[in-house]
């Protein structure tokens, strides 16, 4: 039915090194909860086709806006560069046929539709895998596709609440806190990308794809598993918010310097010894050298408050930078408490050339990991909704021009 034609990635400049996933074809039918997964693939050079509703993905409207004030907002720009966009109204039979055609030639489908949505439209995994047995289909939903709460309405906030993350984030005297951003979706997207790659590995070895059922709540709960069931069933303690320090690491937390806060965490016995020696040198404190404080963090658990006083006595006479540099020289895990804006002046990020410039001239986060032989390709063009309708449907699926215009006129695309 469809001609096989090179994708944009394959036909691009032949000389440049290709991403590790060049040649992998991904269809993304995803709202804000699934675009991070597709981004990870696009940044590795996969051909990611984003299927949007006719008015465009509602995530294009998510704040904050860029300084230019235009849609899409920064969330969409961060998560969708390098993808191609087609607009299809899946209520229309002609559009469903085109969607099936796109999936038939894909390696991976990432989708965030509610349970039953694709099945009812003849596009479920059972139907799709008949035409394409090696297809991996990854469903990302807030609670998973099965279970009594599968159809509960959700947002990133409610997923963070259910996952256990919020109960242990922030300060005991405050309401439960949230991490910045939409980490319910980055956790789900990261797990979904990992699981999809594992299934693709298996599919390439066996010829058989499979269906993946990702629950965002489970994903973030597993990311938060340090405070999860294993520890709880061992010691019976229900972890909760306890400020900037971690409950099992002593000392840990923020300490006041002349010009701001530093963060410190001690886990290794050798790190404690180095810290105690530095405190003693700086403040003359002899008590801090008491051997009863030595060993694993558990030995210092009963002395957290006292040790915090000792440390603050020392840091109070230094700047953040002094504590950071001298602390690291002594192999103690001190770090500055940076604001996001502070990262603009960070010398480590600058030396490694971390930030990339988007087509809008703004600075975007760079690669989360660096491959030695294959480039990371993030920060590229952010597609307009339906920007690649012609290129994909006419050029690659082989739809004839007359039918294309008719489907446009009918509102299918």
């Amino acid at each position, binding site marked *: 039915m469809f001609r096989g034609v090179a994708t944009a990635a394959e036909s691009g400049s032949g000389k440049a090194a290709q991403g590790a996933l060049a040649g992998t074809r991904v269809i993304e039918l995803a709202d804000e909860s699934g675009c991070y997964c597709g981004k990870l693939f696009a940044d590795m050079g996969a051909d990611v086709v984003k299927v949007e509703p006719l008015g465009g993905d509602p995530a294009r409207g998510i704040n904050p806006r860029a300084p230019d004030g235009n849609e899409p907002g920064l969330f969409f720009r961060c998560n969708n560069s390098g993808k191609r966009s087609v607009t299809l109204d899946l209520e229309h039979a002609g559009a469903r046929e085109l969607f099936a055609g796109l999936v038939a030639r894909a390696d991976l489908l990432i989708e965030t539709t509610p349970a039953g949505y694709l099945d009812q439209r003849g596009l479920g995994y059972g139907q799709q895998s008949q035409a394409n047995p090696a297809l991996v289909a990854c469903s990302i939903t807030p609670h998973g596709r099965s279970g009594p709460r599968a159809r509960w309405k959700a947002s990133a906030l409610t997923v963070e609440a259910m996952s256990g993350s919020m109960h242990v984030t922030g300060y005991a005297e405050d309401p439960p806190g*949230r*991490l910045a951003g939409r980490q319910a979706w980055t956790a789900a997207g990261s797990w979904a990308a990992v699981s999809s790659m594992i299934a693709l590995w298996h599919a390439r070895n066996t010829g058989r794809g499979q269906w993946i059922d990702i*629950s965002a709540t489970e994903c973030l709960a597993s990311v938060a598993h340090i*405070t*999860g069931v294993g520890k709880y069933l061992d010691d019976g303690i229900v972890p909760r918010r306890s400020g900037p320090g971690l409950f099992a690491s002593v000392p840990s937390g923020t300490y006041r310097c002349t010009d701001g806060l530093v963060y410190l965490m001690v886990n290794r016995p050798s790190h404690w010894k180095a810290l105690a020696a530095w405190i003693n040198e700086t403040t003359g404190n002899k008590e801090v050298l008491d051997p009863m404080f030595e060993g694993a963090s*558990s030995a210092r658990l009963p002395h957290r408050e006292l040790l915090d006083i000792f440390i603050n006595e020392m840091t109070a006479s230094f700047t953040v930078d002094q504590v950071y540099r001298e602390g690291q020289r002594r192999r103690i895990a001190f770090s*500055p408490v*940076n604001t996001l804006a502070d*990262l603009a002046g960070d010398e480590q990020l600058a*030396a490694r050339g971390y930030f990339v410039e988007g087509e809008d001239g703004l600075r975007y986060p760079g690669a989360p990991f660096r491959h030695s032989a294959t480039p990371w390709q993030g920060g590229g063009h952010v597609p307009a909704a339906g920007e690649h309708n012609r290129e994909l449907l006419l050029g690659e699926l082989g739809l004839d021009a007359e039918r294309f215009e008719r489907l446009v006129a009918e509102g299918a695309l």
Partner: protein
Amino acid sequence: MSADVSVKNAATKNAAGALAGLRVLEFTSAMAGPWVGRIMAACGAEVVRVESRDFPDVVRGYSRPDDPEHVPRPGESPWFTDWNAGKLFVALDLRRPRGVELAVKLAARADVVVENHAAGVMDRLGLGWQQLSAANPRLVMLSSSGYGATGPAAGYVSWGPNIMALSGMAAASGFAERECTMDQYAFPDPMTALHGLFAVMSALEHRRQTGRGQYVDLSQFECTAGLAGELLVDALAGLSVGATPSRQPASACPEGVYRCSGEDRWLALSVQDDGQWAGLCRVLGRSAWLADAGLVRADGRLERANEINEGISDWTAERSPFEASEQLQAAGVAAAPVQNVDDQYHHDPQLRGRGFFELVEHLTLGTVTACALPLGLGDTPAASGVAGAAVAEHNDYVLGELLGLSAADIAELERDGAVQPPAGNEKGSNDQ
């Protein structure tokens, strides 16, 4: 010996797993490194972890908080289970030439090496990318470090919470008046592990096509900063982030957490569209809100957020978050209890019904319960191998079966000090 049981389970627990046949070698400690191999092992990969008695994993120092003697339980830490179930453990002294030789032999037969030491440590041991790739050009190697392998701060020491602070995530999280908001689960550690695993699988796909391995340099700082995404772009563009109390840009109104009856009980609520607003008004019995034309749209509600939030709090204060969630969900409103671990384990029919709590076989404890790995693989489900291995637990299997050394060879290497034997009955206290 228990070693037979643990080898059987560690090596073959999930022989039908999606990664069966892949060989992984680890030089790791704590979480950000070990979690990569833990997930691969549950998918059927053979994962060998190299340890040294002289530099014990901090996780092996775990003791129960209520133990006045703080006796370490090196194989029984629940986190050690979470990060290491299903692996094979061999103990080598990598400061000895013959220890390094053995490690290189293991790398020569591996598909993947994972390490999370401070930058430079592996190179100094003679186990850096240059050395290992010379022994095995098809190798994929992941180095996960706090700051990355290059740059003036490469080699700095850090833990997950340091990275939260360094990356700006801690300052940007939580309530506006707080300078540093921390989660209790070291968010960067599991997140960078997932990214590292994705990077490894991508490199394996590239190898499948080209026959060539490659090196992956993961900076936990860079990876975590990227998770701030649009907020980081916004901050660098010199703009202020939205003014809502949690510093989240308003996408829904009302949205937030509301105090419920009971100690530290809260409801999370997001009214995402006008239909949900109508549902909320009905459940709360607020017909005046429903009839108020000024509140039909989110921007109108945003202007009167205080009034609305007070009304919601009045209602939630008389209810448990579970009761409130059920009522609101029945009306199609996105509401959920802020759950703690006890709620999740004892009272969440969704997590339990989907098998989120996995019973894991444990060498000394029989079985333990752990969070399952939520891969959701329909045909090749993940399954955890045995947990609780001691240092050197699988020396004989790894050196004998995998490297083909004789018992006499191994005994000689033990005398040399390159191989560190199991501690026998003393295992536990000596591992500190």
